[in-house]
């Protein structure tokens, strides 16, 4: 009970503090907006829009998680250590483990909200790109409106109540994107989505969805959940880096792990059967291929939740391991 008593205010504080950084808001807005713009950026040039939009949007979410997690973790830890606020908190009856765990929880909460927003945006973008050579604007416009309204609403709130603009917009955006998603989900009365036959470059394409709303691809939820799990691992790593390093160095290290994780199958899978060190490395290093299900989506369309559960065990174990190292390190660290 005592743990909870100290833990939640700290985690809440981190959760409130992080979205107050204007850069985090700008970055998350850009990522969401970019995901929302993918259907018309991609359908313009190529066929197979649905797959390309999905792949790009998921990649954007993954990369975005890395770009957001590192500054968020650094703001929560390294900036606080440098500013002396960490020292002030640790002079109170708060253990270091509790401090770091609360920071991690706070950062995770914010990242979870971002992942949620990105998932909804991806599902809307996927619907908008479902018909070849035709953009489903009615699934995209609510998303754009949600972002626009979040900024307007936050401006009004800031004007009248002086609440911090960046964090208000972030939370408004989360709420409004959810509303926009539900709105597009409930859209049923529309007579048809796009013309029955689409003409593109002299070729005619039959619109499979003519006369009915395009179904939501719910299988994107487990795919996005897997990326969220990978993001959780990156956060833990970012938190560990942030104990000693600044943003650039942390971003460099995390990007390095990101690259290695993407290539670990290429680099180590074969060697792992032959040598012990490769086997150990293969086990220790994160392997993002487990969390990248875009190809499975295209091939079969379904990702079993059992797989997600197994991946969660892997992700949580890896995260816990990194956090344990971070706890051990922070416990011995001198804090001014």
């Amino acid at each position, binding site marked *: 009970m005592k743990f909870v008593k100290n833990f939640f205010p700290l985690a809440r504080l981190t959760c409130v503090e992080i979205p107050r950084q*204007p850069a985090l808001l700008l970055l998350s807005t*850009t990522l969401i907006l970019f995901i929302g713009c993918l259907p018309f950026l991609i359908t*313009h040039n190529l066929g197979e829009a649905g797959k390309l939009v999905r792949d790009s949007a998921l990649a954007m979410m993954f990369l975005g998680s890395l770009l957001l997690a590192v500054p968020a973790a650094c703001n929560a830890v390294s900036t606080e250590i440098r500013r002396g606020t960490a020292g002030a908190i640790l002079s109170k009856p708060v253990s270091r483990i509790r401090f770091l765990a609360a920071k991690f929880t706070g950062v995770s909460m914010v990242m979870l909200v971002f992942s949620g927003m990105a998932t909804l945006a991806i599902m809307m973008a996927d619907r908008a790109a479902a018909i070849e050579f035709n953009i489903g604007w009615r699934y995209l416009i609510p998303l754009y409106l949600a972002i626009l309204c979040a900024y307007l609403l936050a401006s009004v709130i800031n004007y009248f109540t002086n609440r911090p603009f960046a964090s208000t917009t972030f939370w408004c955006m989360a709420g409004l994107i959810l509303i926009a998603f539900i709105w597009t989900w409930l859209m049923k009365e529309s007579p048809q989505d796009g013309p029955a036959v689409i003409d593109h470059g002299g070729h005619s394409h039959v619109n499979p969805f003519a006369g009915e709303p395009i179904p939501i691809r719910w299988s994107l939820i487990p795919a996005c959940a897997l990326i969220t799990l990978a993001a959780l691992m990156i956060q833990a790593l970012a938190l560990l880096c942030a104990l000693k390093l600044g943003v*650039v*160095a942390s971003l*460099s290290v995390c990007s390095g792990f990101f690259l290695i994780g993407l*290539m670990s199958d*290429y680099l180590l899978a074969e060697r792992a059967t032959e040598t012990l060190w490769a086997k150990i490395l293969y086990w220790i290093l994160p392997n993002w291929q487990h969390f990248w299900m875009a190809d499975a989506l295209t091939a079969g369309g379904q990702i079993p939740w059992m797989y997600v559960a197994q991946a969660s065990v892997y992700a949580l174990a890896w995260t816990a391991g990194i956090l344990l190292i971070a706890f051990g390190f922070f416990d011995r660290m001198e804090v001014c």
Partner: protein
Amino acid sequence: MHSIFPIYKLTLRSILRERVALSMLALLALVLLLLPAGLETDGTIQGALRMHIRYSLGFSSFLVAAMTLWVSCASIAGDLSSKRLQMLLTKSVHRAEVWWGKWLAVVTLVSILMLICGGVTYLRIQHMVKTADLTRAEKAEVHSQFITARKPVDADYIDFSDEAEAMAEAQIKAGAVPENFPKEQLVSQMEHYLRVSQNAASAGEFIPYTFQLPHPLVLGSQFQISYEYDGASMGNSTAPGAWHIDLPGKQDVQIFETEENPYGTKVIEVTVDEKLAGASNLTLRFENRSEESGRVFFKTDQGVRLFFGGGSFSLNLFRALLLLCGMLALLAAIGVSAGSVFSLPVACYVSAVVLLMQSFSGTVEEVVAAGAPVADQEESILTHGIKVFQYKVFEGVLVVLKPLQMESPLGRVSKGITVSAGEMSSVFLLRFAPVVLLISGVGIFLFSRREIGAAV
């Protein structure tokens, strides 16, 4: 301007002592060492070389660009947030001196990083060629086509605009075009059609390409005919053909027969004999010798070229790296200016958006080049309105991105094509220098008006 150098030195020193440069170097080393191992090549040495230069070095240059943005944004914005700038600006220092000092330091650092990446790639390529299991002929081919710097000569440009205009008129008269279809779009489509036809040959047909040579051909010297297929509409996998070299008033001076898969780029080595010596222009004719009906296509844009003289690959790579450094200097100007106007994270964001947009400028350009959207009768006014709005936005974005657009010189280096010193200096003088001056002007103006140390 006496303060620029101390500020430059201080900035460099703090970047080095804060170990920012070191962490960047570590990440670059990781990329340079690991990326080639992770990428799959076609198994040939040529493929591996191209992979090293285009992708491995290309990705490193992208990373260095990202680093440039970070360091340049942090150079002024970081000093502002740590309030050191407050102290600095109470001294006898013009804000322009602070801007230029910081910019120079960033450019020095990232240029060194870029050159190190280039150096590592160069050494690696040399090592690969040396240790590769190749015959002498294969090694010679690698040296004549890849590890070299060849000067390209393009075929004379054929102007189809009048013909295209006439065809468009005829189409409109015949009523084959919807009423509101814009004429210029139709003309450009016709022109494209004519150009494709010009670069296609049916069985028994010839395609002529005329070249004005930079200097008269010297007896015994060599040049290359390089041609890039754009597919073929025949059933067979091989396309028998021949390349004829004609001189004014003298046909078939040399003939090279080909029988190959009509995909990708091929090269024919030509030795200048007595008949060719002294020629200052020549015509190449491709003959489709297939007996089947169907056509062979060559790329319309620089599909058939001549290559002269193998210059030094290392110098070529160096020139390409210098061009990249120029591009980084431009990015650094954006970063330093953004950092002098916004807080560090916002400045980073603004510059990153510019970088991102720049990397998507190709797509933007394609959309704009396709022309304004045409109203479709089945389309609602709203959908058309959105398309028009999108087009206008893209047009505006392209205007901003135009000065930042630059085709990566690494593509040419990987193909053994020269990046000429003249081209380099013209890009530096006519593009980089004015744009950097413009960006610095805007940055310094806004920075000078900015209040420092206001209570928050």
